[in-house]
């Protein structure tokens, strides 16, 4: 069962993990890669626990991998996890 529904715009791009992330209540981060999104995957998982969230996004924004950078926030700093 999905813990929450989260819009892609509320997720943060993490350069180190190469994934969009969102805080997990366990302290770690829910993660989903661009490849996942490209394939139509909408589940972001936490590597530390059983929880996952459903990512709300427009599939067309990720359909063409190469030229799409509009959704990647430039100002946000990467947040690394141990």
């Amino acid at each position: 069962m999905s813990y929450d529904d989260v819009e892609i715009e509320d997720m943060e791009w993490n350069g180190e993990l190469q994934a969009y992330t969102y805080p997990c209540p366990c302290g770690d981060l829910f993660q989903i890669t661009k490849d996942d999104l490209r394939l139509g995957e909408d589940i972001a998982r936490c590597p530390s626990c059983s929880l996952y969230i459903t990512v709300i996004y427009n599939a067309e924004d990720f359909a063409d991998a190469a030229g799409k950078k509009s959704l990647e926030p430039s100002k946000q700093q990467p947040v690394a996890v141990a």
Partner: protein
Amino acid sequence: MMEEATKASSPSSSSAAAAAAAAGEEEEVWSWGAGTDGQLGTGRLADEHLPRLLSLSLPSSISLLACGGAHVIALSSGGRVFSWGRGSSGQLGHGEAATNCLTPKAVTSLEGYFIAGVSAGWSHSGFVSDTGCLFTCGDGSFGQLGHGNLESCSSPIEVSYFLSKHVDQIACGMRHSLVLLKGDPNNRVYGFGSCKRGQLGPTSNRTRSTSLPQAIQGLENIEIVSVVASGDHSAALSSGGRVYNWGRGFPGFSDVHSPIELSSLLRIKQIALGWNHALVLTDGGEALILGGNRHGVLGNLENLGLTNHRPDVSALVLERVPGLDGKKVMQIAAGAEHSALVTEDMEVMTWGWGEHGQLGLGSTCDWIEPQRVSLGHTLPDHWAKCSIYCGSGFTFVIRSRTSSGPHQDD
């Protein structure tokens, strides 16, 4: 189903406790739950399913702790600040964004001040001096540091907006912060950071975040005595014991973009917020919960098919925390998805989500009713004071008693 809680916890002797005892105070610090960022202070990067007695090397007794997403801030009785756990966004205030810090380290840049209040958010931190200065550090991506930009910083920086004001309290949530001022009877509560879910009160449409403090509208002429933030929730307590909440809606309820008074005839003395629930403690020592029936059943109520509409928050009903058998409650605390309390006889009880051992019961089970946590072999009533603190997925307890003799500090 449950393992025996006392077996594996056999505490080693604590040097900090011994040092404190020499100074006339006996103090124990315990931790358990998610620990892979070093937030438990055990010196290890691992979860603990049972309470661990810590040997923290701190120069004096701890007056309070603030537990965040994966970091902890300890305030000493001498007004000094120590922090440990995840530091990747600079939230430890050590001057460098280290991955993590396994043992308490002083926040040296604040040593010219006597710090009187601290708060730990998901990945940012706030510090208030006894002279009313506010400092913040850590992740600033959403403006949650209040410096007027989206920069992160690894050393506490004074929030210049409040230079001419006296800050009384700071409360850090997931991506926002609340500030309570002293003195000013009208605009006492300010907020900054993410406001998409209403956590800063009324904002103009499409504003997602603000990096400069703004007064929270809707609390004018109410004497607020404390502010609380967790997840995307905000709350304030009035001197008359009334509770106001705003921000993300509790499960099944819509977001609230303006402070709403919780309808209850009871006089409330403490509020604790999780990411999807809230606890309140009445003057009479009764613990009540909002959104509590979700505990142990993590997930969207909508996905469960339990709600067809989203009623207003005014329809929220406080329910009595079950299973306490009339015992009075002294203190409450809430993690993201777990809860904890201390009873009048100094017993610690926990319930909610337990996957990381954050309930300290020796298992990873969820519990919908409070369960007694076993902390070593001393009887709970040996202690004069017992305080509980929850981070997102972990829990800390400090127990102390003062023997006669002068108290030394730092």
